[in-house]
């Protein structure tokens, strides 16, 4: 199925601004469903970004991060066309990854 990761990575003036939005329920384990039963915790724990084989950013997330989580950061370097590898794994062991191209 299509990737759960949507990313915008713009490289300009020697720095790359990265924004990512991930399709994930991020259930905290405190919310009840319509039948009054607690929805079990299901949230992304680790999210990593790699550029030119080097980790440029790592996020450790918990149940307090919003559904369909968003992240924005900037790193020095990166040029148009470079690869940016994004991968996440959650507390149930599910995972997904995507390699995106930096845009100019």
């Amino acid at each position, binding site marked *: 199925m299509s990737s759960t990761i949507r990313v915008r990575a713009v490289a300009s003036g020697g*720095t790359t601004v990265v924004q990512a939005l991930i399709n994930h329920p*991020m259930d*905290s*384990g*405190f919310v009840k469903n319509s039948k009054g039963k*607690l929805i*079990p*915790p299901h949230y992304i*724990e*680790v999210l990593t970004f790699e550029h030119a084989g*080097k*980790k*440029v*950013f*790592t*996020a*450790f*997330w*918990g*149940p*307090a*991060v*919003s*559904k369909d*989580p*968003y*992240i*924005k*950061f*900037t*790193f*020095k*370097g990166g040029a148009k066309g470079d690869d940016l590898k994004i991968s996440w*794994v*959650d*507390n*149930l*062991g599910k995972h997904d990854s995507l390699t995106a191209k930096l845009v100019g």
Partner: protein
Amino acid sequence: MHAPTTTRRFTLSLLATSCLATTGLLAMPRAAFAFDAPGWPAAAFSKKTEADAIAALYGQKLTASDKIRLEAPDIAENGAVVPVSVSTTLPNVTRISLMASHNPFTLAADYVLPAGTEPAVACRLKMAKTSDVIAIVESNGKIYGARKSVKVTLGGCGG
């Protein structure tokens, strides 16, 4: 952050937590049902107070700093999606953490910034109720903090 307030805060947040979550869930040790990804600071994420979370993550005292710009709304439009952004002029920042003081588990997010990554991050957090958002920045191995109060109320007339 001396002992007495910690125990009082601890009992207070425990009270808040129990009314929020079934005790059954809490009785189970966090790690039991969670598959922990490598590197994920499970201990820090299971702490229920600011002091314990900071201790678990950094093991040192927090000193306030005005070199940290923490942006968060005065009144949250929706406690489930609170846009928060942190940026700082402190040098050699290697880590930024975000906490919400009255969430069942205080630590919300923890970011590792290798050299070459600028000391700024934006994300969207969930806040259980009106409380402080705390940003912690590790610069040259020492931690500095900034806090901002965010009001969280129910939405709509909820008939």
